[in-house]
């Protein structure tokens, strides 16, 4: 029993660790995709956020300023994507691919200049995003250890769950959300009702970059303490997958990210204890995602105007 609770606690801990950055990025992806703009540049925006977050935290000594700047760096690349796709009507896939090259390319070059290395200097404990409820639980008992594993978690994790609720509220309970969803379904209708589609989409794509940037910063400012070129390897794409999995709804994306995180957590525990080959275990999250898709989720209804540039006739 003790073993079970220990393992289970570790799995849940790992679930949260994996899911947090994905969730930020997935929420970002929701904004962009639901407003009608395909954003495969999430990966590049995360990388920019990961680097900027650590660097600013390193120089200011304040993790929160760093975290925020990570978001802003993502938003900057979001803005580039928005200018190309929303204002100029560029192909969204091509522009996103460009962002995925530009983001890492630029930040790694800056890293070279600042640190004469592609890696940043590791953050000290006080420069990292703090853990909440650390030491609150009595780790000498099984239950206490379990609670410590699950709840003594980074502040960014608590924040992201709050963000899910806020984004859900914005999407479904506010004027902004109603209009944002309408823009992704029928931009012409919005225009005839006096809603500024261009401004709406521009905002959403920038927001998606901001959230992706926060997600990236989460990766390098919590468990890992430094930025390396391989800090962000595919999390951005996984986040996009989670959004498609969640049928373009923030709460759906939450399920997708948690499922993915949980499988990754399982991987950690199984990898340590069972005799099964590590690489095979590493496949679990991807295989499980596909199986769950087949069994329970099925077809994802893409917002009707998703991917189609909206060009106003003058």
């Amino acid at each position, binding site marked *: 029993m003790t073993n079970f609770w220990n393992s289970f606690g570790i799995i849940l801990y790992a679930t949260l660790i994996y899911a947090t950055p994905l969730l930020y990025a997935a929420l970002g992806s929701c904004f962009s995709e639901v407003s009608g703009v395909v954003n495969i540049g999430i990966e590049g925006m995360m990388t920019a956020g990961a680097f900027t977050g650590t660097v600013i935290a390193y120089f200011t000594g304040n993790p929160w300023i760093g975290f925020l700047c990570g978001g802003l760096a993502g938003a900057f690349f979001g803005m580039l994507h928005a200018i190309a796709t929303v204002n100029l009507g560029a192909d969204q896939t091509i522009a996103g691919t460009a962002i995925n090259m530009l983001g890492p390319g630029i930040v790694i070059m800056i890293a070279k200049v600042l640190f004469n290395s592609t890696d940043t200097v590791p953050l000290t404990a006080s420069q990292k995003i703090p853990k909440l409820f650390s030491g609150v639980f009595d780790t000498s008992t099984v239950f206490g250890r379990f609670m410590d594993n699950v709840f003594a978690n980074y502040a960014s994790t608590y924040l992201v769950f709050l963000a899910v609720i806020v984004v859900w509220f914005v999407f479904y*309970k*506010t004027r902004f959300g109603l209009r944002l969803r*309408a823009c992704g379904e029928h931009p012409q209708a*919005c*225009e*005839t*009702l*006096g809603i500024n589609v261009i401004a709406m989409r521009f905002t959403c794509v920038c927001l998606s970059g901001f959230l992706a940037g926060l997600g990236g910063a989460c990766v390098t400012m919590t468990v890992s303490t430094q930025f390396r070129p391989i800090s962000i390897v595919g999390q951005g794409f996984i986040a996009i997958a989670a959004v498609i999995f969640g049928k373009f709804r923030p709460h759906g994306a939450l399920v997708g990210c948690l499922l993915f995180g949980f499988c990754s957590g399982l991987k950690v525990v199984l990898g340590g204890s069972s005799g099964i080959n590590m690489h095979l275990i590493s496949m679990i999250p991807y295989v499980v995602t596909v199986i769950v898709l087949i069994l329970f989720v099925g077809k994802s209804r893409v917002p009707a105007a998703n991917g189609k540039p909206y060009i106003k006739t*003058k």
Partner: protein
Amino acid sequence: MSKEYVDMSTPVIEMRNIVKKFGDFVANDGINLTVHKGEIHAILGENGAGKSTLMNQLYGLLKPTSGDILVNGKKIVMNNPRDAIDAGIGMVHQHFMLVQPFSVTENIVLGTEPVKGVKLDMATARKNVVEISERYGLSIDPDAKIEDISVGMQQRVEILKALYRGADILILDEPTSSLTPQEIVELIAIMHNLVKDGKSIIIITHKLKEIKESADFCTIIRMGKYIDTVDVDKVDENDLASMMVGRKVSFKVDKPEQTPGEVVLDVKDLHCKDYRGIEIVKGLNLQVRRGEIVGIAGIDGNGQTELVEVITGLRKGVSGHILVNGTDVFNKPPRFGFEHGVSSIPADRQKHGLVLDFSIEDNLILQNYEENPFSKRKVLQRDPIFKHATQSIDGYDIRPRQSEKRPAGTLSGGNQQKVIIAREVQNDKDLLIAVNPTRGLDVGAIEYVHKYIVDQRNKGKAVLLVSFELDEIMSLSDVIDVIFDGQIVCSIPGKDANENDLGLMMAGGGKKS
């Protein structure tokens, strides 16, 4: 029209000498329009005459190159629809501007949503919507999703959208194009209710009869130019038609008497479901013989679309038989039906009819690219393909000439339809199915399309015509089958048909009990 509500001393809209250019192309060339309080004013013109361009300027979607717009006597400049809405103008577009997965209420309030703090106040929104719909007698279900309601109700939602924004001037763009005769009567009643209430209505249309029935005044536009504004009571339909087209038009289709031959298409006890999985064709029987045109009259949504999709193999049916020259093509792929004698002019030419990115020559071989001489051993033969295209372009008057290699998407609607007709007629199959073959075409192109359909009949082909335009059905068909609720409820000779009876049966009045 009695003009009892028209207040001739109060012009609400004045458009003066409006010019709108797109590059070198002049879409509106000095148009004048005056609409008074309580007036129903029709704008008549062929497709491409510049009606929609004119109205889009009045609704702030486009900016005039020159000219003035006055609303309630005050000159205003509109930069976007918001300005038009603020000036009390509302527009119902021909293609409804509705967000499919949203509810009726959400669609109506979108853009002017009531809020409580930061939260949407949907309860108030719903209350307001119900209130206003009752006030003007526009019945709707405030909670239904748009994708689940009928076209007629969608139109009422569109009108409510404008009224909800406090519109005093309503622009209706081709409002009757997908309505039944009964729904049109209802719409005209609604329009009268609205003018009684002091609203003004501008209705864009090319249907003369409706103008006679509903409008007080009519402004005619031809090829971008202002022709005249007339008092509807003082002109007849023929006058309107010649002003619109600029010449005398005949609405009669010449059709020699001929005796039909053996049965080509025999549909027996057909059942099928729509995209939501609800049974929509319910044991339908239908026959089309050689040398006759069978017209299917019916309100959109009674199964005619699905019927055609099952016959052409695009949709799987539940049960039944579809015999074409004796071969059952039921639930066979489209290619099978084609090989056994089915050709068709699809309802949506841009969706089903053409690959818009493909050149005209490639579109002309959409079904027979695998046949000699267009390909040999799986390799396309460009010379025969090109020659075939040249012949088709000449033979079917596709403009512009020498357009063999041009993407089909760059052609005008009428010429796109000619490409499809050229292809389907040259396929030379025993059965030709035509679904709304003239939708969105102007008078010249309509005459052309009708000529080819009648030619096919005269050549001894079986023709199945499905159309929401009752006039089209009545002028072309040898036999009219009325479809209602997934069944053919009656079948009458074309020459005996009259519009009122048909309308009644289309609405279910003639259902066999």
